[in-house]
């Protein structure tokens, strides 16, 4: 519900959106403006806490993998991947190279369904002036149908490996409970070819959009791997020289609690805000893209806009769609079913830590495993809680430029800015409630 106050001669103005829509979960924003400057920008997250870090205490590693999927219905694979790699790293489990490829294929499936959902169903309506993809489909049915078919292919890929797209159930320490035969994977090959064409068309579609003008120089953080576009392996790097092992997030970053949010906020130990997600990942790893995705990025010509303007994250997602589909095809073409679905393992006590690249960015897990092989302590740092401070900083920087616009347009651009991060508030913890207040205090 958008409440639009009539502009008046007084200095105080209030823009209000009861709940930000087309995001996962619920949160609020309060922005105070004084003399044309934003003096306070709070992204409030009051999604009810579910205490996952406590729910996993006393559990076995495989139980943790089932439980942490439930943090997010959109990116359960990411939670399962960070957890399983953390445990395998601590236990010294060598996974079969084919299993490693299947894990990447699994992640490709999640990136495809999540990015297709965000680009077309959540984000594109902003650029085209529709309240949702339902109305968009009335005018451009073929575009939406094509998008849904691509999204379905991503979901099918996840389900092929994980039995179902939401809360898949096959990931186990050491591998999977079951791995597919080659011919099972080949069955999805035509749909992937078709979706790859849709992803290329998505890049063309994105090229035709117009984004609000906004430039900043963000600190970008993602994984980086020696040869691969980063998903579940590599080192944690930034655009300003950070380069640490994948299990060492706590060396460089920390979480803190703020009174306006049920999600903990993360910053660097020096107090800097930083950006995760497709734009950061693409900027830091453009040289690791699949050739077809590199070609798409070159043809798009928006690399600098993707780095500097958060609204252009839609272009980063489009390029990553091409990457994920092209890589999925390559993995399937090179796949040979491993002799066993999972390598044997024995639990050992210690700290298990790992980060992987969720669709929305770096997702870090840290577990302490006790002598019985059960979890004694857990820390889960989702991408959205890390992006919170960056979103607030960007709103602070962007808000002055919209104060001259109409209430409705200013509010819309601020909402769109938040949506461009694809915030997953259920992950971070739930209502995005946008309030902009101008005060003369």
């Amino acid at each position, binding site marked *: *519900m958008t409440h639009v106050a009539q502009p008046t001669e007084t200095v105080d103005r209030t823009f209000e959106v009861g709940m930000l829509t087309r995001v996962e979960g619920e949160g609020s924003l309060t922005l105070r403006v004084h003399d044309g400057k934003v003096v306070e920008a709070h992204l409030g997250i009051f999604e009810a806490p579910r*205490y996952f870090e406590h729910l996993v205490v006393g559990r076995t590693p495989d139980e943790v993998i089932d439980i942490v999927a439930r943090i997010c219905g959109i990116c359960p694979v990411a939670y399962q991947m960070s957890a399983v790699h953390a445990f395998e790293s601590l236990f010294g489990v060598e996974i079969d190279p084919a299993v490693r490829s299947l894990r990447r294929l699994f992640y490709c499936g999640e990136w495809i369904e999540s990015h297709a*959902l965000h680009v077309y169903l959540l984000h594109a309506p902003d650029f085209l002036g529709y*309240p949702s993809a339902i109305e968009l489909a009335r005018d451009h049915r073929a575009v939406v149908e094509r998008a849904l078919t691509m999204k379905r292919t991503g979901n099918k890929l996840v389900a092929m490996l994980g039995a179902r797209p939401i809360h898949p159930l096959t990931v186990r320490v050491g591998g999977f409970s079951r791995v597919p035969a080659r011919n099972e994977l080949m069955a999805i090959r035509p749909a992937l070819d078709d979706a790859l064409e849709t992803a290329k068309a998505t890049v063309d579609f994105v090229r035709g959009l117009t984004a609000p003008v906004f430039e900043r120089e963000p600190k970008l953080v993602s994984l980086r791997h020696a040869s691969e576009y980063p998903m579940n392996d590599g080192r944690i790097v930034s655009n300003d020289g950070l380069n640490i092992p994948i299990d060492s997030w706590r060396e460089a970053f920390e979480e803190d609690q703020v009174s306006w949010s049920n999600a903990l906020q993360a910053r660097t130990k020096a107090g800097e805000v930083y950006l995760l997600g497709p734009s950061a990942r693409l900027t830091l790893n453009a040289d690791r893209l699949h050739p077809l995705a590199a070609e798409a990025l070159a043809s798009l010509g928006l690399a600098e806009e993707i780095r500097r303007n958060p609204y252009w994250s839609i272009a980063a997602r489009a390029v990553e769609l091409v990457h994920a589909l092209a890589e999925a095809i390559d993995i399937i073409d090179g796949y040979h079913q491993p002799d066993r679905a999972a390598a044997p393992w024995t639990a050992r006590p210690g700290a298990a830590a790992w980060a992987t690249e969720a669709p929305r960015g770096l997702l870090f897990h840290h577990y302490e495993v006790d002598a019985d092989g059960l979890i004694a302590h857990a820390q889960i740092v989702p991408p959205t809680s890390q992006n919170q401070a960056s979103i607030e900083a960007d709103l602070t920087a962007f808000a002055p430029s919209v104060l001259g616009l109409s209430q409705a347009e200013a509010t819309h651009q601020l909402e769109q800015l938040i949506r461009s991060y694809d915030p997953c508030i259920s992950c971070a913890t739930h209502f995005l409630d946008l309030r902009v207040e101008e005060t003369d205090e």
Partner: protein
Amino acid sequence: MAVTGIAPHPRPQPNPRWAAPRRPRVGVVKFSSCDGCQLTLLDMEDELLAITERFDIVEFAEATSNRSHGPFDVLLVEGSVSTADQAEEIVQLRRQATTLVSIGACATSGGIQALRNLGDDDAFRNSVYPRPEWIAALPTSKPVSDYVAVDAELYGCPISGRQLLELLTSLVVGRRPQLPDEAVCAECKRLGNTCVRVAGGVSCLGPVTRTGCGALCPSFDRGCYGCFGPREAANTVSLANWFGELGKGDAEVAREFAKFNVGAPAFRKIVERER
């Protein structure tokens, strides 16, 4: 049939805009949850556009900026009630809804976050947040039916898209939805799976769990972990005893039942017994 010699009387043609039955107004809302059950609707890629033609989706914050506080012909409610605000909101929403359907394990049994109903809530809060006093949440996570009357429930973590489609279809044509209430075992047998429990010695909640998923776990070489909750008259005590005979300790048996439907009485009973 026209009578010879008499021109057939032209039948009155209703104005199609008046005669088209009004599309049911559907709302989708959530409380404490992962968004996965409402996402199930968006994941019905083949049916989604047809559904939006048959139903007027007036409230679905995750998918549309059009908002409504009601009234709703059908309201799908995801998530458990775990804050004081949610406890008030569900009462308001119930007044606006002709048919209220809880969807998913959180809304039907409190979700995995209902584990805190069994233990010390402060321990949960303190273990996650440095400043627990800033967190406003109830000490319990409860199903929607604990607060208001519910007309139908879809089980599962997540729900089944097929069951959601069956529910919506039945509402349009005005019949009872055909939702199974047999054990996962029955469906698993029909699929021709080798029993993971008998042949593999794996603990499997299939005998006591309601089907709906398609017996996915045993089909993918692992034991069922109870996503759809206990079926009617589930003998969980017998199954728990059998797990004990397999050599599982009490705590291990309790953990098998202490998952996404721990708030369902038949599962909760085992968890409390082992504490």
